[in-house]
Protein backbone atom coordinates (compact mmCIF):
# COMPACT_ATOMS: atom_id res chain seq x y z
CA UNK A 1 0.00 0.00 0.00
CA UNK A 2 1.31 3.39 -0.99
CA UNK A 3 1.61 5.63 2.04
CA UNK A 4 3.74 8.32 0.49
CA UNK A 5 2.53 11.88 0.77
CA UNK A 6 3.03 14.51 -1.87
CA UNK A 7 3.47 18.15 -0.99
CA UNK A 8 -0.20 18.95 -1.55
CA UNK A 9 -1.23 16.02 0.63
CA UNK A 10 0.45 17.07 3.86
CA UNK A 11 -1.19 19.04 6.65
CA UNK A 12 -1.39 22.72 6.00
CA UNK A 13 -2.25 25.68 8.26
CA UNK A 14 -5.92 25.41 7.30
CA UNK A 15 -5.98 21.81 8.57
CA UNK A 16 -4.47 22.90 11.88
CA UNK A 17 -7.23 25.50 12.18
CA UNK A 18 -9.93 22.89 11.46
CA UNK A 19 -8.33 20.51 13.96
CA UNK A 20 -8.18 23.24 16.62
CA UNK A 21 -11.83 24.13 16.03
CA UNK A 22 -12.74 20.46 16.28
CA UNK A 23 -10.89 20.07 19.59
CA UNK A 24 -12.60 23.22 20.90
CA UNK A 25 -16.06 21.86 20.00
CA UNK A 26 -15.16 18.54 21.63
CA UNK A 27 -13.94 20.32 24.77
CA UNK A 28 -17.17 22.33 25.05
CA UNK A 29 -19.25 19.17 24.65
CA UNK A 30 -17.15 17.69 27.48
CA UNK A 31 -16.98 20.57 29.93
CA UNK A 32 -20.62 21.73 29.80
CA UNK A 33 -22.21 18.42 30.88
CA UNK A 34 -19.41 17.81 33.38
CA UNK A 35 -20.08 21.19 35.00
CA UNK A 36 -23.82 20.50 35.18
CA UNK A 37 -23.48 16.97 36.56
CA UNK A 38 -20.55 17.46 38.96
CA UNK A 39 -21.80 20.92 39.97
CA UNK A 40 -25.27 19.51 40.57
CA UNK A 41 -23.97 16.67 42.74
CA UNK A 42 -21.85 19.12 44.73
CA UNK A 43 -24.93 21.35 45.18
CA UNK A 44 -26.95 18.39 46.50
CA UNK A 45 -24.40 17.97 49.28
CA UNK A 46 -24.34 21.66 50.12
CA UNK A 47 -28.12 22.14 50.10
CA UNK A 48 -29.04 18.99 52.02
CA UNK A 49 -26.24 19.25 54.56
CA UNK A 50 -27.65 22.62 55.63
Amino acid at each position, binding site marked *: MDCSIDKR*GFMIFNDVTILSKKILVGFL*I*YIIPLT*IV*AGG*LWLIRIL*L*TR
Partner: protein
Amino acid sequence: MPIDKTLARKITKDISVSLLLYALPVTVLFLYFALKGETPWVNNTHTPAAVNVPAFLKFLTPVFKNIHSWGFIVIALVVGAAEFALGLYDNKWTKSERTIDIVCFLAPKLLLPPVTGYFSLKLLPWLLPGLANQFSWIPFWAGFFIIAVADDLTQYWYHRLHHQLPFLWRFHRTHHSAPYMGMAMAGRQNFIYTAFFSQIYLTATLVYLGLGLPALFVTVIKSFITLSAHSSIPWDKPFYKYRVLHPVAWVLERLISTPATHQSHHADTVDDGVGNYKGNFGNMFFLWDIIFKTGIITRRYPTTFGIKFYKQEEWYAQFLWPIFKSKKPGSELAANGPEVGDEIPETALYYEEDFVPRPQELEKVAYQGLSNN
Protein backbone atom coordinates in the same frame (compact mmCIF):
# COMPACT_ATOMS: atom_id res chain seq x y z
CA MET B 1 -19.35 26.56 4.16
CA PRO B 2 -21.75 28.63 6.35
CA ILE B 3 -24.38 26.93 8.50
CA ASP B 4 -28.02 27.43 7.58
CA LYS B 5 -29.55 29.96 9.99
CA THR B 6 -32.64 27.85 10.69
CA LEU B 7 -30.41 24.90 11.50
CA ALA B 8 -28.22 27.08 13.74
CA ARG B 9 -31.31 28.23 15.65
CA LYS B 10 -32.50 24.63 16.01
CA ILE B 11 -29.10 23.52 17.31
CA THR B 12 -29.10 26.37 19.86
CA LYS B 13 -32.62 25.50 21.02
CA ASP B 14 -31.81 21.79 21.31
CA ILE B 15 -28.62 22.51 23.26
CA SER B 16 -30.70 24.53 25.75
CA VAL B 17 -33.06 21.58 26.21
CA SER B 18 -30.04 19.29 26.63
CA LEU B 19 -28.81 21.32 29.59
CA LEU B 20 -32.06 20.45 31.37
CA LEU B 21 -31.71 16.78 30.37
CA TYR B 22 -28.20 16.62 31.85
CA ALA B 23 -29.56 18.11 35.08
CA LEU B 24 -32.56 15.74 35.23
CA PRO B 25 -30.88 12.71 36.92
CA VAL B 26 -29.16 15.00 39.43
CA THR B 27 -32.48 16.68 40.22
CA VAL B 28 -34.17 13.31 40.73
CA LEU B 29 -31.36 12.31 43.10
CA PHE B 30 -31.76 15.56 45.03
CA LEU B 31 -35.50 14.99 45.43
CA TYR B 32 -34.86 11.37 46.49
CA PHE B 33 -32.49 12.37 49.31
CA ALA B 34 -34.57 15.42 50.25
CA LEU B 35 -37.72 13.31 50.63
CA LYS B 36 -35.96 10.49 52.49
CA GLY B 37 -33.97 12.89 54.66
CA GLU B 38 -30.76 10.97 53.99
CA THR B 39 -27.26 12.44 53.80
CA PRO B 40 -25.07 9.45 52.83
CA TRP B 41 -22.03 11.64 52.15
CA VAL B 42 -21.70 12.61 55.84
CA ASN B 43 -20.20 9.28 56.88
CA ASN B 44 -19.09 8.24 53.45
CA THR B 45 -16.53 5.50 53.62
CA HIS B 46 -15.94 5.74 49.87
CA THR B 47 -16.66 2.03 49.57
CA PRO B 48 -17.63 1.29 46.01
CA ALA B 49 -21.11 -0.12 45.56
CA ALA B 50 -21.33 -3.83 44.88
CA VAL B 51 -23.77 -5.56 42.57
CA ASN B 52 -24.47 -9.26 42.68
CA VAL B 53 -24.37 -10.74 39.20
CA PRO B 54 -26.97 -13.51 38.63
CA ALA B 55 -25.39 -16.97 38.53
CA PHE B 56 -26.34 -17.62 34.91
CA LEU B 57 -24.41 -14.51 33.85
CA LYS B 58 -21.26 -15.23 35.89
CA PHE B 59 -19.41 -16.50 32.83
CA LEU B 60 -19.72 -13.02 31.30
CA THR B 61 -18.13 -11.24 34.28
CA PRO B 62 -14.54 -11.24 32.88
CA VAL B 63 -15.84 -9.82 29.57
CA PHE B 64 -17.66 -7.05 31.44
CA LYS B 65 -14.70 -6.21 33.67
CA ASN B 66 -12.38 -6.00 30.68
CA ILE B 67 -14.79 -4.32 28.30
CA HIS B 68 -12.29 -1.54 27.50
CA SER B 69 -9.49 -3.97 26.65
CA TRP B 70 -10.23 -7.44 25.27
CA GLY B 71 -13.91 -7.65 26.33
CA PHE B 72 -15.20 -5.50 23.48
CA ILE B 73 -12.99 -7.34 20.97
CA VAL B 74 -14.49 -10.67 22.06
CA ILE B 75 -18.06 -9.39 21.69
CA ALA B 76 -17.26 -7.83 18.30
CA LEU B 77 -15.62 -11.02 17.03
CA VAL B 78 -18.57 -13.16 18.10
CA VAL B 79 -21.03 -10.83 16.32
CA GLY B 80 -18.69 -10.59 13.31
CA ALA B 81 -18.42 -14.38 13.06
CA ALA B 82 -22.22 -14.64 13.09
CA GLU B 83 -22.43 -12.07 10.29
CA PHE B 84 -19.93 -14.03 8.20
CA ALA B 85 -21.73 -17.29 8.86
CA LEU B 86 -24.93 -15.72 7.58
CA GLY B 87 -23.13 -14.35 4.52
CA LEU B 88 -24.26 -10.83 5.26
CA TYR B 89 -21.25 -9.00 3.86
CA ASP B 90 -22.00 -10.29 0.34
CA ASN B 91 -19.25 -9.31 -2.07
CA LYS B 92 -19.00 -5.69 -0.93
CA TRP B 93 -16.20 -6.35 1.59
CA THR B 94 -13.40 -5.67 -0.87
CA LYS B 95 -9.71 -5.72 0.00
CA SER B 96 -9.69 -1.95 0.36
CA GLU B 97 -12.74 -1.90 2.65
CA ARG B 98 -11.35 -4.83 4.66
CA THR B 99 -8.14 -2.91 5.27
CA ILE B 100 -10.02 0.17 6.50
CA ASP B 101 -12.29 -1.89 8.78
CA ILE B 102 -9.41 -3.85 10.29
CA VAL B 103 -7.14 -0.81 10.78
CA CYS B 104 -10.00 1.19 12.33
CA PHE B 105 -10.90 -1.74 14.59
CA LEU B 106 -7.42 -2.63 15.83
CA ALA B 107 -5.32 0.55 15.76
CA PRO B 108 -7.41 2.51 18.33
CA LYS B 109 -7.16 -0.48 20.70
CA LEU B 110 -3.40 0.09 20.69
CA LEU B 111 -3.20 3.86 20.30
CA LEU B 112 -6.04 5.05 22.53
CA PRO B 113 -5.37 3.36 25.91
CA PRO B 114 -2.16 5.39 26.51
CA VAL B 115 -4.12 8.58 25.87
CA THR B 116 -7.12 7.72 28.06
CA GLY B 117 -4.82 6.14 30.65
CA TYR B 118 -2.76 9.31 30.91
CA PHE B 119 -5.93 11.38 31.15
CA SER B 120 -7.44 9.21 33.90
CA LEU B 121 -4.35 8.36 35.93
CA LYS B 122 -2.21 11.48 35.57
CA LEU B 123 -4.13 14.47 34.26
CA LEU B 124 -7.32 14.14 36.34
CA PRO B 125 -5.50 13.69 39.70
CA TRP B 126 -3.44 16.76 38.76
CA LEU B 127 -6.43 18.85 37.67
CA LEU B 128 -8.79 17.67 40.45
CA PRO B 129 -6.50 16.81 43.39
CA GLY B 130 -8.22 15.18 46.34
CA LEU B 131 -11.51 14.75 44.52
CA ALA B 132 -11.13 11.06 43.66
CA ASN B 133 -14.24 9.09 44.74
CA GLN B 134 -15.93 12.25 46.03
CA PHE B 135 -19.26 11.01 44.70
CA SER B 136 -18.98 7.38 45.72
CA TRP B 137 -21.96 7.92 48.06
CA ILE B 138 -24.25 7.98 45.05
CA PRO B 139 -26.50 4.88 44.89
CA PHE B 140 -25.88 2.54 41.97
CA TRP B 141 -29.26 3.22 40.31
CA ALA B 142 -28.65 6.97 40.39
CA GLY B 143 -25.08 6.62 39.12
CA PHE B 144 -26.34 4.44 36.28
CA PHE B 145 -28.98 7.05 35.35
CA ILE B 146 -26.44 9.90 35.56
CA ILE B 147 -23.80 8.14 33.44
CA ALA B 148 -26.30 6.81 30.88
CA VAL B 149 -27.69 10.29 30.23
CA ALA B 150 -24.38 12.15 30.44
CA ASP B 151 -22.41 9.71 28.28
CA ASP B 152 -24.98 9.02 25.59
CA LEU B 153 -26.39 12.54 25.27
CA THR B 154 -22.82 13.82 24.92
CA GLN B 155 -22.16 11.27 22.20
CA TYR B 156 -25.41 12.27 20.50
CA TRP B 157 -24.21 15.88 20.32
CA TYR B 158 -20.69 14.94 19.26
CA HIS B 159 -22.17 12.79 16.49
CA ARG B 160 -24.88 15.26 15.46
CA LEU B 161 -22.49 18.19 15.20
CA HIS B 162 -20.16 16.15 12.97
CA HIS B 163 -23.08 15.86 10.57
CA GLN B 164 -24.49 19.36 10.91
CA LEU B 165 -21.34 21.51 11.12
CA PRO B 166 -19.73 21.23 7.68
CA PHE B 167 -16.14 21.67 8.92
CA LEU B 168 -16.52 18.58 11.14
CA TRP B 169 -18.03 16.22 8.55
CA ARG B 170 -14.76 14.90 7.14
CA PHE B 171 -13.68 13.63 10.59
CA HIS B 172 -16.78 11.40 10.64
CA ARG B 173 -17.02 10.51 6.96
CA THR B 174 -15.10 7.22 7.30
CA HIS B 175 -17.90 5.83 9.47
CA HIS B 176 -20.34 6.34 6.59
CA SER B 177 -18.19 5.47 3.61
CA ALA B 178 -18.71 1.68 3.61
CA PRO B 179 -21.34 0.46 1.14
CA TYR B 180 -22.50 -2.23 3.60
CA MET B 181 -23.50 -2.59 7.24
CA GLY B 182 -21.89 -4.82 9.83
CA MET B 183 -20.48 -4.86 13.33
CA ALA B 184 -17.21 -3.50 11.94
CA MET B 185 -19.05 -0.23 11.25
CA ALA B 186 -19.26 0.48 14.98
CA GLY B 187 -15.49 0.98 15.12
CA ARG B 188 -14.88 2.23 11.58
CA GLN B 189 -13.89 5.80 12.40
CA ASN B 190 -11.24 8.34 11.59
CA PHE B 191 -8.77 8.09 14.50
CA ILE B 192 -9.01 11.79 15.31
CA TYR B 193 -12.80 11.46 15.60
CA THR B 194 -12.32 8.58 18.06
CA ALA B 195 -9.45 10.16 20.01
CA PHE B 196 -11.49 13.28 20.82
CA PHE B 197 -14.75 11.51 21.69
CA SER B 198 -16.04 13.88 24.38
CA GLN B 199 -18.04 11.21 26.20
CA ILE B 200 -14.95 9.06 26.80
CA TYR B 201 -13.35 11.84 28.82
CA LEU B 202 -16.63 12.84 30.48
CA THR B 203 -17.26 9.29 31.70
CA ALA B 204 -13.58 8.90 32.71
CA THR B 205 -13.91 12.04 34.84
CA LEU B 206 -17.10 10.74 36.47
CA VAL B 207 -15.35 7.43 37.13
CA TYR B 208 -12.53 9.35 38.83
CA LEU B 209 -15.16 11.13 40.93
CA GLY B 210 -16.54 7.79 42.14
CA LEU B 211 -19.01 6.46 39.55
CA GLY B 212 -16.87 3.56 38.33
CA LEU B 213 -19.31 0.67 38.73
CA PRO B 214 -22.30 2.39 37.10
CA ALA B 215 -20.00 3.48 34.27
CA LEU B 216 -18.92 -0.12 33.72
CA PHE B 217 -22.53 -1.29 33.43
CA VAL B 218 -23.49 1.54 31.10
CA THR B 219 -20.47 0.81 28.91
CA VAL B 220 -21.36 -2.87 28.62
CA ILE B 221 -25.01 -2.20 27.76
CA LYS B 222 -24.04 0.58 25.37
CA SER B 223 -21.50 -1.67 23.63
CA PHE B 224 -24.16 -4.32 23.03
CA ILE B 225 -26.73 -1.84 21.75
CA THR B 226 -24.39 0.07 19.43
CA LEU B 227 -22.79 -3.09 18.07
CA SER B 228 -26.14 -4.73 17.41
CA ALA B 229 -27.54 -1.53 15.87
CA HIS B 230 -24.66 -1.49 13.37
CA SER B 231 -24.85 -5.21 12.75
CA SER B 232 -26.33 -6.53 9.54
CA ILE B 233 -28.26 -9.08 11.61
CA PRO B 234 -31.78 -7.62 11.85
CA TRP B 235 -32.52 -8.82 15.37
CA ASP B 236 -35.42 -6.38 15.62
CA LYS B 237 -37.36 -7.91 12.71
CA PRO B 238 -39.46 -10.35 14.81
CA PHE B 239 -40.71 -7.41 16.88
CA TYR B 240 -42.23 -5.88 13.74
CA LYS B 241 -43.42 -9.17 12.26
CA TYR B 242 -45.50 -10.57 15.11
CA ARG B 243 -48.45 -8.46 16.24
CA VAL B 244 -48.12 -9.63 19.83
CA LEU B 245 -44.65 -8.07 19.97
CA HIS B 246 -45.70 -4.71 18.51
CA PRO B 247 -46.07 -2.97 21.89
CA VAL B 248 -42.50 -4.04 22.74
CA ALA B 249 -41.33 -2.82 19.32
CA TRP B 250 -43.05 0.52 19.90
CA VAL B 251 -41.08 1.05 23.11
CA LEU B 252 -37.78 -0.40 21.80
CA GLU B 253 -37.61 1.68 18.64
CA ARG B 254 -38.19 4.87 20.59
CA LEU B 255 -35.86 4.06 23.44
CA ILE B 256 -32.76 2.53 21.83
CA SER B 257 -31.07 2.37 18.45
CA THR B 258 -32.23 -0.67 16.50
CA PRO B 259 -30.80 -2.04 13.24
CA ALA B 260 -33.78 -0.47 11.41
CA THR B 261 -33.39 3.04 12.80
CA HIS B 262 -29.60 3.04 12.76
CA GLN B 263 -29.24 1.47 9.32
CA SER B 264 -31.53 4.29 8.18
CA HIS B 265 -28.77 6.66 9.34
CA HIS B 266 -26.24 4.78 7.20
CA ALA B 267 -28.41 4.75 4.05
CA ASP B 268 -26.99 6.51 1.01
CA THR B 269 -30.29 8.14 0.08
CA VAL B 270 -33.29 9.78 1.71
CA ASP B 271 -35.46 9.36 -1.37
CA ASP B 272 -36.84 5.93 -0.46
CA GLY B 273 -38.56 7.10 2.72
CA VAL B 274 -36.39 4.71 4.75
CA GLY B 275 -33.00 6.41 4.73
CA ASN B 276 -32.35 9.38 7.02
CA TYR B 277 -28.61 9.98 6.90
CA LYS B 278 -29.05 13.54 8.15
CA GLY B 279 -30.87 12.36 11.24
CA ASN B 280 -31.18 9.31 13.53
CA PHE B 281 -28.05 10.37 15.40
CA GLY B 282 -28.72 8.38 18.59
CA ASN B 283 -26.11 5.85 19.70
CA MET B 284 -27.40 3.89 22.68
CA PHE B 285 -30.64 5.85 23.12
CA PHE B 286 -32.83 6.78 20.17
CA LEU B 287 -34.82 8.84 22.65
CA TRP B 288 -32.67 11.90 21.90
CA ASP B 289 -33.80 11.82 18.27
CA ILE B 290 -37.42 11.68 19.45
CA ILE B 291 -36.93 14.59 21.87
CA PHE B 292 -35.07 16.76 19.36
CA LYS B 293 -37.14 15.60 16.36
CA THR B 294 -34.10 14.56 14.38
CA GLY B 295 -35.23 11.00 13.77
CA ILE B 296 -37.57 8.88 11.74
CA ILE B 297 -38.73 5.52 13.00
CA THR B 298 -38.73 2.98 10.25
CA ARG B 299 -39.51 -0.71 10.32
CA ARG B 300 -37.84 -1.32 6.99
CA TYR B 301 -34.17 -1.53 6.13
CA PRO B 302 -32.35 0.51 3.48
CA THR B 303 -31.28 -1.41 0.40
CA THR B 304 -28.08 0.57 -0.18
CA PHE B 305 -25.59 2.06 2.27
CA GLY B 306 -22.67 4.47 2.25
CA ILE B 307 -22.25 7.84 0.58
CA LYS B 308 -23.07 8.64 -3.02
CA PHE B 309 -19.84 10.58 -3.52
CA TYR B 310 -17.53 7.86 -2.15
CA LYS B 311 -14.31 7.52 -4.12
CA GLN B 312 -12.85 4.47 -2.35
CA GLU B 313 -10.23 6.68 -0.74
CA GLU B 314 -6.99 5.15 0.55
CA TRP B 315 -7.11 3.57 4.02
CA TYR B 316 -4.55 6.00 5.48
CA ALA B 317 -6.58 9.03 4.32
CA GLN B 318 -9.78 7.59 5.78
CA PHE B 319 -8.08 6.70 9.05
CA LEU B 320 -5.94 9.80 9.56
CA TRP B 321 -7.37 12.72 7.56
CA PRO B 322 -6.29 15.58 7.71
CA ILE B 323 -2.80 14.32 8.61
CA PHE B 324 -2.81 12.16 5.46
CA LYS B 325 -4.79 13.19 2.40
CA SER B 326 -6.33 11.18 -0.40
CA LYS B 327 -4.88 11.33 -3.88
CA LYS B 328 -8.30 10.72 -5.45
CA PRO B 329 -9.23 13.83 -7.43
CA GLY B 330 -12.37 15.56 -6.18
CA SER B 331 -12.46 13.56 -2.96
CA GLU B 332 -13.54 15.30 0.23
CA LEU B 333 -10.37 13.87 1.77
CA ALA B 334 -8.06 15.18 -0.95
CA ALA B 335 -6.03 18.36 -0.66
CA ASN B 336 -8.31 21.16 -1.87
CA GLY B 337 -11.22 18.72 -1.90
CA PRO B 338 -14.75 19.94 -1.15
CA GLU B 339 -15.71 20.30 2.51
CA VAL B 340 -18.97 18.44 1.91
CA GLY B 341 -19.52 16.62 -1.36
CA ASP B 342 -23.19 16.11 -0.74
CA GLU B 343 -25.33 18.49 -2.74
CA ILE B 344 -28.61 17.47 -1.10
CA PRO B 345 -29.98 20.37 0.99
CA GLU B 346 -30.48 20.06 4.71
CA THR B 347 -34.06 18.85 4.91
CA ALA B 348 -33.92 16.02 7.36
CA LEU B 349 -35.71 17.56 10.32
CA TYR B 350 -38.91 15.76 11.16
CA TYR B 351 -41.79 16.87 13.28
CA GLU B 352 -44.18 14.53 15.04
CA GLU B 353 -47.14 16.94 15.03
CA ASP B 354 -47.17 16.82 11.25
CA PHE B 355 -47.38 13.05 11.17
CA VAL B 356 -49.14 11.83 8.03
CA PRO B 357 -49.16 8.09 7.30
CA ARG B 358 -48.00 7.34 3.77
CA PRO B 359 -50.24 4.77 2.07
CA GLN B 360 -47.34 3.07 0.36
CA GLU B 361 -45.52 2.66 3.66
CA LEU B 362 -48.08 1.12 5.93
CA GLU B 363 -45.45 -0.71 7.94
CA LYS B 364 -43.50 2.40 8.58
CA VAL B 365 -44.02 4.90 11.33
CA ALA B 366 -42.65 8.14 10.03
CA TYR B 367 -42.51 11.75 10.88
CA GLN B 368 -43.50 13.94 8.00
CA GLY B 369 -40.55 16.02 7.01
CA LEU B 370 -40.56 19.75 6.91
CA SER B 371 -37.97 21.47 4.87
CA ASN B 372 -36.13 24.16 6.70
CA ASN B 373 -35.01 25.74 3.47
